[in-house]
């Protein structure tokens, strides 16, 4: 053993409590692996919200449908990035697709991801935007016109029959998409839940808990984006739409909260040999991120706010404020959930006799700054997508003039737009 290694070991041993195996001192799955389930969850959640419109015909959510789809796409495009940054050698990532290893659950991510990207999201967005892309392509000048033409795969049929076919296709794909979205995030939960050696992860409930927390995070993200982007466009918010989204958010949070509580009670009652070290960890190193951020600020408080809106008649502005605050809190709470799962699972020794500490880098490939960039990137992609393919149906939102008037009730809202013509000007 050389002296440098010795000094490093002596330094590291200070961050250890109790007994821990040498290879457990350093936390190997860093913040990048926290970001991976967080981003993937947002994708699945945003898609589930979008599917409410197409499959369950929740007309109120129509104004946010296309935004939810583009949000899902932009987050899905960035979702593998934290994995690539963590693993290094991004040029090798195609190897898992070209030389598949069916016995490795982790290697299957490429296929789950590709299925969701190519067969669900891209296809649904393509069918939904195809007519618009053709119309925009005809109106735009070079090079944008080429982008639109290529994006529509040089399609040029915008007859009523073709548009009807598009709508039908969107419906069919959404029906396939719901189990696929469940598969995508259920898969991420499965990766953790199937690790037998780690009692913090190994639970059959984990995929389900992941799925519902994904739905919660995706719905709250679309709510947040819709509430930020709409005023930026100079339009007023469609209150029926955000009331409905908040309603779904409320139910999703309740289910998620119950499932997590069930998982917790189940572990306590089972009291396996790991329970002592886990309770040390939960009441010590994870106290703030678990009890304060995840449960109190990320679930109980937003739940209380939405209950307040539902029980007491609030003014429109107060409702907006409460929805907005709860959506932000929920995002923070779900991030804390991912943190607690990923980092928590590596803090305790498999000897069940000690704990280590996770020290996040600030700079470096797996540091805080890169994490912030990765978190911001989907928003950049979304901004570009919105710029290129505006997802708005103008008839969905009241204009600024109408905003000052009495709030729209669902009955006063525009007719359902699921079958309404696409927004682009018809230059055919």
């Amino acid at each position, binding site marked *: *053993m050389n002296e440098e290694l010795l000094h490093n*070991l*002596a330094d590291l041993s200070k961050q250890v409590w109790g*007994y821990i195996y040498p290879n457990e001192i350093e936390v190997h799955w860093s913040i990048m692996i926290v970001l991976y389930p967080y981003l993937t969850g947002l994708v699945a959640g945003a898609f589930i919200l979008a599917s409410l419109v197409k499959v369950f015909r929740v007309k109120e959510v129509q104004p946010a449908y296309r935004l939810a789809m583009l949000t899902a796409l932009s987050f899905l495009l960035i979702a593998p990035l934290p994995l690539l940054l963590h693993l290094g050698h991004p040029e090798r990532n195609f190897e898992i697709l*070209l030389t598949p290893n069916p016995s490795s659950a982790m290697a299957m991510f490429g296929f789950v991801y590709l299925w969701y990207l190519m067969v669900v999201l891209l296809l649904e967005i*393509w069918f939904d935007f195809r007519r618009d892309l053709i119309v925009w392509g005809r109106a735009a000048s070079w090079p944008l016109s080429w982008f639109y033409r290529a994006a529509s795969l*040089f399609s040029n049929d915008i007859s009523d029959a073709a548009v009807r076919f598009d709508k039908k296709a969107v419906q069919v794909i959404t029906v396939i998409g719901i189990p696929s979205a469940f598969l995508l995030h259920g898969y991420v939960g499965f990766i953790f839940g199937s690790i037998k050696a780690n009692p913090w992860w190994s639970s059959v409930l984990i995929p389900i808990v992941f799925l519902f927390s994904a739905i919660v995070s995706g719905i709250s993200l679309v709510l947040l984006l819709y509430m930020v982007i709409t005023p930026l466009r100079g339009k007023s918010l469609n209150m029926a739409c955000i009331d409905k989204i908040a309603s779904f958010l409320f139910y999703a949070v309740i289910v998620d909260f119950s499932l997590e509580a069930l998982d917790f009670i189940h572990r306590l009652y089972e009291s396996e040999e790991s329970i002592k070290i886990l309770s040390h960890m939960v009441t010590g190193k994870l106290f703030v991120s678990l009890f304060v951020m995840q449960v109190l600020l990320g679930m109980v408080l937003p739940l209380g706010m939405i209950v307040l809106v539902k029980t007491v008649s609030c003014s429109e502005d107060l409702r907006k404020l409460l929805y907005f605050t709860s959506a932000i809190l929920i995002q923070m709470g779900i991030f804390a959930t991912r943190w607690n799962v990923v980092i928590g699972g590596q803090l305790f020794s498999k000897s069940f006799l000690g704990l280590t500490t996770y020290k996040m880098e600030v700079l470096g490939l797996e540091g805080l700054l890169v994490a912030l960039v990765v978190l911001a990137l989907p928003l950049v992609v979304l901004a570009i997508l919105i710029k290129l393919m505006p997802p708005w149906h103008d008839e969905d939102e009241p204009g600024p003039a109408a905003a000052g008037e009495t709030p729209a009730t669902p009955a006063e809202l525009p007719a359902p737009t699921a079958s309404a013509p696409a927004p682009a000007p018809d230059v055919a």
Partner: protein
Amino acid sequence: MKSLLFRPVPEQITRLSLAFALLASGVFLVRAHAIPQTWLDREYHVKSTLEREANRPRRFAGAQACTECHEDQVKEKAEGNHRTLACETCHGAAGKHVEDPTETKLFAPRLRDYCVLCHAYDPSRPTGFPQINPALHNPLKPCIECHKPHAPVPPETPKECAACHGEIERTKAVSSHAALACTACHDAPDAHKVTPRLVRPTKPQNREFCGKCHGPKSEEKKAPRVDLAAHGERYLCWQCHYPHLPEGK
């Protein structure tokens, strides 16, 4: 059925099929021409991996290599308490040193911070394993001044049991047995202090031993009374009651 079959295929389907066909043929082309055979054939892949690993330069020399030149130290270590440790655990990889002993010298830990990696007090280490508190145990003094690293023994025989059994001592100190000396229950021969694993102290082997204080006829006023004939049947008392921290005070 006929109308369904002969209906013209929608343009969308044609274009999507074309795009997917292009993508799929791209994948097949890459798989057929750009990927080395060793990646595709599992057996071949494993074999080439083994070859690659076997061809890596060897860093460690192995325990046998040390014997050839350092016979005395190896012999001394083989009889001492460090006999289960490999030489390279403390001295580092010796591959280069074996090739050219004059050119590459091995590292020998001489400061305190190396030994405490194993010997600093840690409640989870097995009882009886020699442990010290580095802040209190001769601070600033290198360990090897008093302990021979190849055959470490305490420079003088420990007087107190707590020198090695600190955890038990601390547990007992807050229990209702705090006032009892270790030797009240254990008979520890002097040889145990020198060769702790070869000569072990005794443990009470019958129920009557505990009954001296806890039996119905005991004169100990504060000790809980138990009817030995009716309680515990064939078990020894310490099989159910941990004597270093017995229930109740």
